[in-house]
């Protein structure tokens, strides 16, 4: 084990895959030598692998993803970086109409092994065009896989799995977790998609969440422990494929479920999870499922506004108390 930041763990995973397989390359805006990625994830990789394999692009999101698609169906494994998740709106045709559907509409003649890395979430006061959490759009698009790693030890194993997957993977990072440090195995490892991780065991309430909200959920679980409430925290790690079983098993044990993500509430991933659990686990529920999400507004700029918008520990804790 070695202690490293989420950023460095992610970079280590990318680097290992680039060393392992020369077909892997990175493209995106400012990923190369001058900048090393807006969040510095690719810093140093262009120096090691050259400008061709760590390729700066013009500001052309749709063509960045489309070029990744074209390269992938002809023998390469591209990792495309979209600087902010909000900007993926400019590439939706290539992500959702091409990458996600090519294998299907061509009857299995090809597959599209690309990874699209992008960054979601608020907390940096950068307003409505740089702070959204849009993962539900991609969960709603058959043909895509969606990874939402929140921990350094996961991000390394999951990026390697994403790169080796023959399907297009939307790899969603959160801008507040890059600097978080954690022990990361230093040996070679991958983490399979579709396997949730129980971050904390508990008996009274299941708390399911993603990305930065998981860190808040764990703090809440610790706090509530002092009040005598035992909270089990589940991290799905990937939304597609989704590990339903770990969640249902937990609900069987606790009988209570709270869902928390940073998305605006209407049709958030929490809505799908709530619907799934009532369809497949209704008999074990002892209380209505609670959802903690952002309000249905754009992400605001000013600190007090943004703090109000993003779910905080207080709201999460209250939701848990409400169901016990």
């Amino acid at each position, binding site marked *: 084990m070695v202690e490293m930041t989420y950023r460095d763990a992610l970079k280590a995973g990318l680097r290992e895959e680039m060393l392992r397989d020369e077909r892997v390359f990175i493209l995106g805006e400012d990923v190369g030598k001058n900048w090393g990625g807006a969040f510095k994830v690719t810093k140093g990789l262009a120096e090691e692998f050259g400008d061709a394999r760590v390729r700066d692009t013009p500001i*052309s999101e749709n063509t960045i993803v489309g070029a990744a698609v074209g390269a992938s169906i002809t023998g390469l494994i591209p990792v495309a970086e979209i600087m902010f998740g909000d900007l993926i709106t400019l590439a939706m045709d290539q992500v959702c109409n091409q990458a996600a559907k090519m294998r299907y509409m061509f009857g299995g003649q090809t597959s599209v092994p690309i990874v699209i890395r992008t960054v979601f979430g608020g907390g940096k006061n950068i307003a409505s065009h740089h702070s959204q959490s849009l993962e539900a759009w991609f969960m709603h698009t058959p043909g895509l896989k969606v990874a939402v790693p929140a921990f350094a030890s996961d991000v390394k194993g999951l990026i390697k799995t994403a790169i080796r997957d023959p399907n297009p993977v939307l790899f969603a990072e959160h801008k507040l977790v890059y600097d978080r440090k954690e022990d990361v195995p230093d040996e070679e490892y991958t983490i399979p998609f579709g396997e949730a991780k129980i971050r904390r065991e508990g008996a009274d309430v299941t708390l399911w969440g993603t990305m930065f909200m998981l860190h808040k959920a764990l703090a809440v679980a610790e706090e509530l422990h002092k009040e005598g409430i035992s909270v089990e925290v589940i991290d799905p790690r990937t939304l597609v494929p989704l590990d339903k079983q770990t969640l249902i098993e937990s609900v069987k044990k606790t009988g209570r479920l709270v869902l928390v993500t940073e998305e605006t509430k209407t049709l958030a991933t929490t809505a799908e999870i709530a619907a799934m659990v009532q369809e497949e686990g209704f008999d074990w529920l002892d209380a209505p499922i609670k959802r903690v999400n952002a309000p249905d507004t754009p992400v605001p700029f000013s600190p007090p506004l943004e703090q109000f918008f993003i779910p905080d520990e207080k709201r999460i804790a209250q939701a848990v108390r409400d169901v016990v």
Partner: protein
Amino acid sequence: MPTDKKTLKELYTRTLKVRLFEEEVWELFGQNLVPGTLHLYLGEEAVAAGVTTALKKSDWIQSTHRGHGHVVAKGADMKAALAELLGKKTGSCKGKGGSMHITQFDVGVLGATGVVASGLPIAVGAALSCQMRGTKDVVACFFGDGASNNGTFGESLNMSAIWKLPLIWVVENNFYAMGTPIKLTCPSQSIAQRAEGYCIPSKVVDGNNAVEVYEATVEAVERARAGDGPTLIECQTYRMKGHSRFDPAKYRPKEEAEYWLSRDPVDIIKKLAIEQGALTEAQAEKIREKLLKEVKRAADFAVKSDFPEPEEALEDVYAEVA
């Protein structure tokens, strides 16, 4: 170098093959055997024939919603192509794609796309792949005049130019984006003029003359294989029929339509080939009979093939993880 006799004969054969294929599609459509819509390539055959004759089998093409001609000219199996149009299990896409996604990957078709202008970025990626993998293969990307008004046109031409990609941008300018005439959508005299802003050499050719298209493509392919980057070829052509299945194209001025319809791509290449001594009238007829038989056999196969089982709708969403 003028086009040699063997190539003239090949150009005639390919142009005619696409024509006969599309005529068969139109006939099957008339019998109500083709579900959904159709964007026929009739009238534009010389573009696909001219471009693909200048390519190798290992080279790639990116197609469009009006893609039957591209795929057939690149060497697709016509049985699988027709079966796909009829929604059959034996179709090249197992009945999951149909007319707008008609694709045969193994003959070098990257795909046909139902979203106008969305093939251009994919062609950029395929050409980048050819370059990075060190193959000498090139990519020809077909798109229409309408697509040149979409943002990906600018993004993709730009990227192809900065990276000197082995790409041939083939504009099929048929002067109408569905029913909207180009004079309402494009301020420049030609689409080719737009390439100048990206420092991409370009040429306007008669898209109904397979020899002109072929010769321009040969030059572009040479440039691409030599590592000198992309070329844009604007092929001016015309749809013999409307935009899609029930469009009588009444918005086109009568004189304009008459002019273009008098310039049939099959007649033009046949005349040129005969004049150059590449073909005799009798040989041309023999080629027609042979192709027609092949097309009819393919149609017979398609009609007699089974539809997929309904549950097959659930297959091919994801590739198996190794």
